[in-house]
């Protein structure tokens, strides 16, 4: 978990006639809308830096126009970033030659698209095999491998159909299968479930989580749905006007929104399901009283409430190695539930 797989360093994307000039001259406090009004340049991504670690699901969440889709396209250079470095496996993507880049796209990362981006003239199985075909894998082998992936995403029996004959959810399964077929190290998902209706979306989210448990891919997942980000993301970056406003675990962000903008998103979140003992615990006060009931550190409030409801005693919180690292009581649980933002520690 600790090795950065992808690192963004001061990445910019500016659309307009003289983008480099804008980056040099613009002051940090100038709003994006003012830059557009004064210079006619659209700043889509603005000085973004963060790391994505191996095997984690990193969600980039933001409203439309926040630059999240542009950001993910910069990562595989479907859109050329204007400035900055993007390090993948230690190599700077921005400086790669056309050939190195093609190699990266063919073997290291693949992408799932919002409107699926399937090839309507190819059967499902040929869609899935596309990436392998581009790599130059023999027909027989790539089709055989594609059938394995087809099974994995639950599309048994649909191999010979054309995409338009499938429902939206199933089409995106094809999109996902096509991306997984090349066995990439990195999976980029650009709002893959946004075009689906809510029930199908939930199914697909669960499906993705199930797949991720087996595959352990590094995933960059773009969404405009905060709840989706909470559900899928190991960590979340919230973007606004091309900038990253806050990065943290779902719990971090719900418990400590950095400003009103982020707070707005957290309002409707079912806190009992997101917050855990980690957030509500305090350091152990009486070292000698290390007895009594104990819970694991990632116990959600939902489970803590019945435990604390009938007792005034503190409940111990333990980490993975059975060390006591804090305690919670009814008061702290209630406080955390009461959407009070400032945590007194």
């Amino acid at each position: 978990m600790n090795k950065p797989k992808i690192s963004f360093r001061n990445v910019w994307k500016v659309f307009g006639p003289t983008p480099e000039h804008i980056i040099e001259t613009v002051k940090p406090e100038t709003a994006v809308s003012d830059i557009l009004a004064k210079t006619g340049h659209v700043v889509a991504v603005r000085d973004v830096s963060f790391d994505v670690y191996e095997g984690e699901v990193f969600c980039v969440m933001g409203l439309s126009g926040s630059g999240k889709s542009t950001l993910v396209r910069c990562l595989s250079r479907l859109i050329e970033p204007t400035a900055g470095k993007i390090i993948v496996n230690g190599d700077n993507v921005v400086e790669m030659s056309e050939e190195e880049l093609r190699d990266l796209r063919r073997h290291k990362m693949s992408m799932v698209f919002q409107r699926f981006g399937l090839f309507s003239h190819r059967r499902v199985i040929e869609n899935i095999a596309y990436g392998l075909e581009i790599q130059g894998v023999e027909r027989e082998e790539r089709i055989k491998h594609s059938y394995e992936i087809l099974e994995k995403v639950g599309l048994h029996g649909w191999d010979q159909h054309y995409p338009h004959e499938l429902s939206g959810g199933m089409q995106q399964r094809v999109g996902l299968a096509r991306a997984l077929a090349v066995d990439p190290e990195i999976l980029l998902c650009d709002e893959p479930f946004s075009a689906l209706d809510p029930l199908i979306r939930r199914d697909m989210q669960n499906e993705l989580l199930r797949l991720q448990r087996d595959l352990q891919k590094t995933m960059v997942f773009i969404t405009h749905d905060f709840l989706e980000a909470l559900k899928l993301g190991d960590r979340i970056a919230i973007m606004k006007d091309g900038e990253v406003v806050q990065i943290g675990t779902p719990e971090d962000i719900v418990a400590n929104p950095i400003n009103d903008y982020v707070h707005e998103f957290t309002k409707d979140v079912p806190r009992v399901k997101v917050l855990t003992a980690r957030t509500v615990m305090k350091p152990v006060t009486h070292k000698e009283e290390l007895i009594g009931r104990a819970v694991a550190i990632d116990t959600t409030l939902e489970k803590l409430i019945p435990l604390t409801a009938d007792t005034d005693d503190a409940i111990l919180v333990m980490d993975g190695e059975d060390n006591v690292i804090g305690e919670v009581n009814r008061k702290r649980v209630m406080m955390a539930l009461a959407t009070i933002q400032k945590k007194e520690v």
Partner: protein
Amino acid sequence: MAATRQPSPAKQITPVRIILIAALLLFLYHNLIHNLGVFPEEWNLGLREPLDMFKKWVIVANRDGHWMFALFFQPLKGSIDFFMRRIEDFMYWLPWTVIIAFVFFLANKIGDLKLALLTAFSLLMMGLLGLWDESMRTLALMVTSVIIALAIGLPLGVWAAHNDRVETMLRPVLDAMQTMPAFVYLIPVVLFFGIARVPSVIATIIYAIPPVVRLTNLGIRRVSEESIEAARSFGSTPRQIMLKVQIPQAMPSIMTGVNQTIMMALSIVVIAALIGGGGLGDVVLKSLRRLQVGSALEAGLAIVFMAVLLDRLSFAFSQIEHVSVKKHQGFRLLPRKWGGKSWAKAIERPITWVYAMSGRLEKKVVHLFSRLLPKQDENINSAGYFITMALGLLLLLGISFALSWVEFPENWDLSLSKPVDTAVKWAQVNLYQIGDTFIGTGPFSDFVSLYMLRPLRLLLLEWLAWPIIILLISALAWKAANWKLAVYSALSMLFIGWLGLWEASMDTLSQVLVAVLISVLIGVPLGVWSARNDSAEQFLRPILDFLQTIPTFVYLVPVIMLFNLGRVPGIMASVMYAIAPTVRLTNLGIRQVDEAAVEASVSFGATTWQTLRNVQLPLSLPSIMMGVNQTIMMVLAMVIIAGLVGAAGLGFSVIDAMQNNKMGASIEAGLAIVLMAIVLDRITQSWAQKQADAANIT
């Protein structure tokens, strides 16, 4: 209409009004005081002499081996000739049985059994009309021209799709090429290559190339951004994106372009008989010249069958459906409505049985062959089918040669010509005037000549002297568009005068106007009718499709049967050929009028007629105008053809000069037609555009 009128004071001085007043003053001067006379002859540019000189130079240079001819024109001519002869020889060598079987099985695979039967029937009819060899000759000309046109057009379209600059350069050229009447291409080609089949092929290629370029470009550009992005995200090279994503996705559009290219090629291949193209067109032409209507009709029918065959077959290619399981529909001979009737069942049942059995047999055979193929593949069915088909055809080839079924049997002849000739004689005697009434082709023809053509010609040639007409046309152009178009139109008209063709042009213009008027008078009501009545639309659609499929040339046959020679048969042929777009676009325009506007009108208690006149027609005017624009262009395309049946004017000048080997005069007349076509096209198109803008319809 009201929407375009500015709420300006009535007596505002606009340039258009000044021009109109000037025209009025000139009109009074011309008719009351002093006749302005005809277009001054001394202004004649005398273009024909240098052109004739050039023609002579070409002949000499050709003979003497001038480098341009030795290195460019001759080799080009030679290679096309070689290519065409090989194809022609091959088609003559192939027994007729094999050709029909090939088309049948091909049509069955890409379409259905119905299409297969239709195409096979069409080919069989060509033979039964006694025109198998001529048909194959025309087909060879077609195959050669279309293959070359596609070999140039497809890459050009792909290039245009990938390069904006190429597209912007190509677009006006393609637009201009599509405005020109087919015949115009024959003239310069004849200048360089002389009269024979190769120039026909070259003219055909040039004329037929625009649709495939246009639709290849369009199809590729319309491929969704996301599938291209997806392809890029997997590391596809630009070449892979093009071959694996863009071209396959654009295939329906490309094939539509190919279909249009084929149909345009056919229309000119037939006309190319005039410059020695040979084949079916030649039969029509010779028969028309000898007034042998019967054999002209036979050849005309063969051309119609050829058109239907090529159109339906290439159309089927454009209907590529990506479906996993093809729905197997039963074969139906009779309309579905009759299905309940017992006698209909009695007819349908054996057909259905044969259909099902043949389907099962096909599957069995294909399956048998597919096991011989090395790899299991989803394309197995197609591959199996074509291998089976190839083997079957080879077998048939052997049988045909063994039994010497090579040439189409001569005694299988419907010989329509004699009965048709009799019928025509009868029609000319009996339909000319039925009893003492005014019904009949004679009175109709007289009416059109006496009350429409003659007064119009008088108006254009005598009451309005040439300067007045130029002023009026430029005023029209200004009103429709802007001063630029006005100046352009005025100059174009002047140029026609300078060519010494003012009188012929006005003659042509009067015929064009009458033909357009008749087309609108018949076409708009038909369009309204089909917009208001679904079964009327269903009834008219195949007829209109059919009218648009037939090459222009063929229309001369029926009109000459009824109207003999002169301007009127030319006009009637033009109306038949050109009416379809007016009907179609009137129908479309009215059907696209906002439902709410119609409901609002009805809710105010408007009668059907009031709703039609005050709401539907005004709102569909832009669409109707587009239809009229297309009709005008098609009438103009027919002008030269009409010259063949003796319709005086520019068309006749072209034909006459060409047949007397006066290259210069022929080019002059052709140029005048092009100028007139461009002026009329730009004016009507800008007008339609203006209406559309005013009505806020794009």
